């Protein structure tokens, strides 16, 4: 039943090296491998942090040491040796940068290869980019324009120095250090990340964007992101990732916290394309991320994610709907190919009255990959008239791939209304043949069908991201029907 040359195409694609698999040769300042209190002190002192933050890190480390890595996800992987990882690496950048011309040419080249050169970003989209390479931000733009509105958008390191009161107030307020194994680890050793604050009543006029990139071989990446939207403000935040090819697994355990104060709105969009490993999954990135937002009265948090990369993904962007009339949304497309594994979904915790949540999850499994949706909808006794709608669809591209759905629903208030719909389908040979007969080639046919399937989610992305995401979906699935 296979299409002509399908096996050949499959082979070609699985044999094809990761397009963004290149490394940048930049001198770096790297800590010895291993994790102990001294390393944490080293990180903290390198970053010239205040005493309270060091103490916070050490407390987190103490908690982490007592915790066990979770084994409940539907994932199989070699657990990382946390003592073999180097927890600090910063590109050596000696002087302050006044313009792009001063950026290390090697680093510029990397950005060019990624197709996200600063000039292009500036010229095309008006997106302010905080480019994170190996834990230290090297370029920040549009800061002045944002500054006029009182918007703070900077690296976490700068925020600790320049806005310590905000950081101290909100850091760990949504994801406590002891929340889980990976968040505790992150709290102990995070080296950088992004900080964003939108003042009362301000509507951020541009999409804020951060490109993460893991660069130093054997360096774990522990990003910390904190977005605070003050009352009646609005911000749309974009996060996109690519990573260079590696032989050993790379650990990534980020924490993202969103705080939406009364009547504010945060839209957080992610396109994730980290190195998934070779056809056997060797060398791919381990992505263990904790993302959570808290919604105060009449506020809204919307998570949109397009996940195509990583060897192993463990990720549940969640919303705590604390305030009355608050709204949480989760839109996700997760693609797995070859030996990739993903266990991803969301948690919607309804605490306030008349809180609403929507979950739209689209899983796409190809090769011999496994794709799991895991979601929790929890309605607490205080949440009168809570509403949830969940839709979890799975699309199988091959007979050897798997799709799994683990929806958990806990309702403790009788006025709640919770709906859950789920479907699993295999990509239709009839659909593909229909396209072929109209003169559309197979690659394009798959791209059309898959993008159509994921449309509800892609429509949630800002325009320039949606285009990138569509391309990514197509690239990730080239020749993967079987």
């Amino acid at each position: 039943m296979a299409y002509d040359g399908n096996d050949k195409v499959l082979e070609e694609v699985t044999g094809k090296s990761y397009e963004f698999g290149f490394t940048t040769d930049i001198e770096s300042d790297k800590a010895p491998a291993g994790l102990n209190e001294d390393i944490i002190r080293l990180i903290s002192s390198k970053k010239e942090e205040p005493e309270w933050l060091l103490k916070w890190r050490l407390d987190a480390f103490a908690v982490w040491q007592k915790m066990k890595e979770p084994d409940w996800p539907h994932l199989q992987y070699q657990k990382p040796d946390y003592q073999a990882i180097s927890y600090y690496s910063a590109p050596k950048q000696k002087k302050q940068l006044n313009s792009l011309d001063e950026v290390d040419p090697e680093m510029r080249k990397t950005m060019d290869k990624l197709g996200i050169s600063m000039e292009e970003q500036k010229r095309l989209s008006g997106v302010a980019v905080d480019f994170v390479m190996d834990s230290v931000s090297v370029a920040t733009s549009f800061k002045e324009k944002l500054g006029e509105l009182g918007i703070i958008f900077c690296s976490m390191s700068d925020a600790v120095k320049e806005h310590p009161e905000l950081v101290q107030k909100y850091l760990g307020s949504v994801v406590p250090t002891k929340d889980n194994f990976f968040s505790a680890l992150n709290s102990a050793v995070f080296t950088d990340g992004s900080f964003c604050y939108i003042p009362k009543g301000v509507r951020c006029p541009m999409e804020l964007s951060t490109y993460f990139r893991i660069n130093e071989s054997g360096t774990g990446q522990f990003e910390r992101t904190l977005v605070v939207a003050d009352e009646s403000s609005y911000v749309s935040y974009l996060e996109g990732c690519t990573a260079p090819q590696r032989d050993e697994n790379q650990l990534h355990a980020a924490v993202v916290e969103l705080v939406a104060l009364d009547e504010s709105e945060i839209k957080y969009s992610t396109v994730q394309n980290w190195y998934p490993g070779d056809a056997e999954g060797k060398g791919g990135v381990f992505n263990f991320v904790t993302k959570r937002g808290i919604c105060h009265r009449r506020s809204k948090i919307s998570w949109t994610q397009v996940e195509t990369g990583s060897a192993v993904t463990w990720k549940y962007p969640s919303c705590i709907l604390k305030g009355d009339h608050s709204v949480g949304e989760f839109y996700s497309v997760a693609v797995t190919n070859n030996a990739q594994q993903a266990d991803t979904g969301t948690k919607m915790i309804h605490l306030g009255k008349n809180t609403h949540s929507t979950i739209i999850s689209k899983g796409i499994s190809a090769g011999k990959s496994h794709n799991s949706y895991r979601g929790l909808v929890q309605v607490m006794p205080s949440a009168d008239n809570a509403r949830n709608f969940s839709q979890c669809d799975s699309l199988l591209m091959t007979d050897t791939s798997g799709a799994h759905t683990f929806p958990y629903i806990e309702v403790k208030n009788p006025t709640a209304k919770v709906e859950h719909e789920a479907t699993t389908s295999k990509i239709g040979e009839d659909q593909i043949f229909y396209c072929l007969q109209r003169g559309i080639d197979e690659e394009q046919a798959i791209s059309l069908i898959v993008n159509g399937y994921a449309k509800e989610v892609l429509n949630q992305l800002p325009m320039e991201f949606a285009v990138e995401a569509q391309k990514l979906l197509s690239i990730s699935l080239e020749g993967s029907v079987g």
Partner: protein
Amino acid sequence: MVNIKELQASIGETPILKGLNLEIKPGEVHAIMGPNGSGKSTLASVLAGREDYEVTGGAVDFEGQDLLEMDATERARSGLFLAFQYPVEIPGVSNINFMRAAVNGKREHDGLEPIKGKDFLNLVKEKASLVELDGRLRNRSVNEGFSGGEKKRNEIFQMAMLEPRFAVLDETDSGLDIDALRIVANGVNAMRSPDRSFLVITHYQRLLDYIVPDFVHVLVDGKIVLSGDKDLALKLEEKGYDWIKEDVIA
């Protein structure tokens, strides 16, 4: 235009077409009729290049090219169109985007630039009026939630958009009421021209009242056993197929 010689095809181990011969000249409309299971839809699928069928013998010449050597996409781009018996739904892909991809695929094959947005929309408007396909249907996902009649009209709309040299209509009349049948037939008739040929596969003579064929062939057990003009269809309608099995084959 199309010359089919001793075509044999099977699905799995089961032979379906057993040495079929048919020559279609430019501008001609040929109808194929036959009892259930005689191989009518298989012929359509094999001509369009569906891989579920294995061609085990024979040859098909399409305007001087070896059709059987071409993949399905190439055949389509070279001007072969199949109107499906059961048009397929593609959720989330708008009819318009689908047709744009198809039109541009053909243009690429012809060495042309992708069509301009404005030209494309004008083309859509012009062709949609042929089969009375309103704007609502054009912008909806491909065939999703279309009625049976709407799906068939959409097939003819697509055919009009792609202006094929050779169109195969696979039981386009099935599931149509009289009004839809008339609309579909009018669309096809509007496209008849001296350099375009049609192969109309049908169970019923009724369609041939509207699309009047130049030749009618009867397919039984994978072979054409009888050919004639449009009156043959009337005779079949009246007498069924049994007399052929008895008189012609025996």
